[in-house]
């Protein structure tokens, strides 16, 4: 009797095991293929590098990675994507590249992959992905072309996405009785108080180098202070009161910042903070893992994290990277499998545990992660205020961005009047927009 009962069960088990070998390995067809990925040299992707061997072991798909400094990576990609056969199967892209690539029809629409039953993992749980990131980084074609909306569709997945938080020195703030800034007035006061009371220390380390960095730093303050680059009809409004306030805020921060601030890129700014030369650092969450690494940082354990202070509204940046499959890729399906694996619950957590930035709500709620990186909770909170429209992601943005950057640099180093500077930017931006056809429907 027992035997009789056991038999079918055993058979069934054997059957499952058998069919498992045949069916439950969706990777089988791609075993031995090599996915060539182009990733930025960035802490999140450094963490990815440590997780990739696990993917290869599980799936048999090999991964080769070409890691480049992110602006160099963007330059390389813009050239590479134009070719008939590209070198890369999977690319990590800077958020503002989304518009360029999608507009030039260089990225695969992901719908056909998520529709393909052989490729799409039913347990993927896309609802768990952080909405703001998906919309900002992955979706194109909605409102204004770059924001989410009914006409949008998915071209990439957020991976290594970032928002901004304020990192500050708990010990310094305590020593001098400085409160953690909650709004911009407090922030600017604190930034200029530090160098007065702490000899040789700068208030806040900020990016400011001419070009993209200065533009980024300016935009970081523009959104919370209530400004935008364009209004809804694409008229430049960067030179309104909010714009001038943002420029002045940046100038105050740089003037009260550590020595040489005017040339800082994010790495120099972060180094200044890690060396204990500045008391605050307000930039991407991606840097936090390095701050807490005692081998690299002198301030490990002394850093507190707070939300990006409020101006007239809360609005931290949305930035970082997404991953997508180029149209001219060779192994697109294998690339999709890697992409799906990396952004799955398991992959996202594995990367986060190595110091990467989660793209999923569930990862932020994970107990192990919060234990290992106590700041995760603050970061999760910061995400709620992440502003997907803090900068326009349109194809001509590169040029406008560079112009804002060089002009801001002049404000910071040559005492150009902010109003005059921004008026100039607005005028030139209008010409560029007109040239690109944004006023065709007037």
């Amino acid at each position, binding site marked *: 009797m027992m035997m009789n009962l056991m038999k079918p069960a055993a058979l069934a088990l054997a059957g499952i095991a058998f069919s498992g070998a045949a069916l439950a390995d969706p990777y089988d067809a791609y075993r031995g293929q090599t996915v060539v990925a182009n990733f930025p040299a960035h802490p999140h992707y450094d963490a990815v590098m440590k997780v990739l061997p696990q993917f290869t072991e599980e799936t048999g798909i090999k991964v080769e990675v070409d890691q480049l400094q992110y*602006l160099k990576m963007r*330059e390389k990609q*813009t*050239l590479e*994507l*134009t070719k008939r056969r590209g070198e890369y199967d999977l690319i990590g892209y800077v958020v503002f590249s989304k518009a*360029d690539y999608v*507009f*030039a029809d*260089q990225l695969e629409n992901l719908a056909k992959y998520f529709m393909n039953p052989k490729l799409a993992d039913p347990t993927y749980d896309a609802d768990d992905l952080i909405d703001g990131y998906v919309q900002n980084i992955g979706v194109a074609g909605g409102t204004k072309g770059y924001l989410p909306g009914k006409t949008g569709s998915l071209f990439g997945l957020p991976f290594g996405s970032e928002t901004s938080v304020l990192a500050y020195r708990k010990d310094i703030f305590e020593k001098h009785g400085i409160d953690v800034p909650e709004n911009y007035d407090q922030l600017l006061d604190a930034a200029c108080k530090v160098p007065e009371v702490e000899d040789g220390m700068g208030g806040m380390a900020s990016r400011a*180098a*001419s*070009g993209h960095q200065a533009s980024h730093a300016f935009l970081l303050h523009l959104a919370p202070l209530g400004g935008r680059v364009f209004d809804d009809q694409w008229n430049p409004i960067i030179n309104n009161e909010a714009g001038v306030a943002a420029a002045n805020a940046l100038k105050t921060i740089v003037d009260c910042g*550590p*020595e*040489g*601030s*005017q*040339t800082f890129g994010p790495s120099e700014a972060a180094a*200044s903070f890690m*060396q204990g*030369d500045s008391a605050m650092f307000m930039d991407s969450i991606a840097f936090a893992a390095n701050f807490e690494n005692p081998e690299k940082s002198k301030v490990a354990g002394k850093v507190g994290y707070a939300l990006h202070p409020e101006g007239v509204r809360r609005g931290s940046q949305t930035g970082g990277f997404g991953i997508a499959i180029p149209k001219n890729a060779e192994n697109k399906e294998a690339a999709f499998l890697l992409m799906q694996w990396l952004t799955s619950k398991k992959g996202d957590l594995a990367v986060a545990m190595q110091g990467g930035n989660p793209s999923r709500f569930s990862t932020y709620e994970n107990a192990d992660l919060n234990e290992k990186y106590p700041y995760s909770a603050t970061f999760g909170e910061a995400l709620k205020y992440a502003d997907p429209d803090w900068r326009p992601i349109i194809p001509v943005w*590169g*040029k406008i961005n*560079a*112009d804002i950057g*060089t*002009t801001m*640099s*002049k404000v*910071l*180093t*040559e005492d150009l009047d902010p109003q005059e500077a921004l008026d100039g930017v607005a005028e030139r931006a209008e010409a560029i927009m007109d040239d690109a056809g944004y006023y065709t429907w007037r």
Partner: protein
Amino acid sequence: MGTANRLTPWLFLAPAVVVLGIALLYPIGYMIYASFLSWSPSERIGDAEWIGWRNYTNLWTDEAFRESFLVTLKFAAAVVTIEMVLGVGLALLLDRKLRGMTVLRTIFILPMMIAPIVVGLMWRYMYHPTVGVFNRTLKSLGFDGAPWLSDGTWAFWSVVIADVWQWTPFIFILALAAMQSLPRSALEAAEIDGATEWQKIWYIKIPLMMPVLIVTLLLRLIDAFKVLEVILVLTNGGPGLSTEIVALRIFRTAQEFQELGEAAAMSNVLLLMLMALTILMVGYNWLQERRAMRLRVVAETGK
């Protein structure tokens, strides 16, 4: 002369002509064509829109380009003046029998041989606001650090210094060689007449070296317009546009802004400028040779 003979020089020349034709002349022609297009790397050149002279008229009104044009002129003028004065001055000072001169010359040409990228990195490290040697030394002496790369004017001169470091030896070596091949008779005659050291320099050495010095100056000037990598690494054109020379502007326009047509138009402007300088140099040389020949003829017939 048979056909074989007439063909011989061309057989020797053929590989060079082919390579130069394919990889230099053709690209330049292509670029001239591209400068009339509105062309981004995401489209084939055949699909790009023909916009006539618009890239050029845009350049004319483009403040940023005008500024970088001025920066280039300023940079070339500063660099060449300083290097000529220093290089020729050092050559005059060191023009004497000296044991170890070979070693010294070897040391001096080292900077020229190092990759511009590396030169940029080296100086960026030295100019670093906190870890750089300059600011560290200043601070250990009790001064404030200087804004080497973080202030427009400072950054411009910092970039000039890096170039002077790398290329003054070039002028020095050439000037020294020219000086040592001066006819000794003239100097000895001056000495017999009781000329002072200064008089020898002003009335004999410099005038006799003039032809070589002018060629050297033009060579350096041409090269100064080509400088790119050192500045790319050091400042990337900043702060503001204070160090953005035209070559860098071309690079950024092509790779960062992806306006290939506009970059091609800029390239043409730069090329025309350099062409003019080269023609000046070749012309000057030709005149010199003619004069030398005439002198020789005079000398011979006079005999």
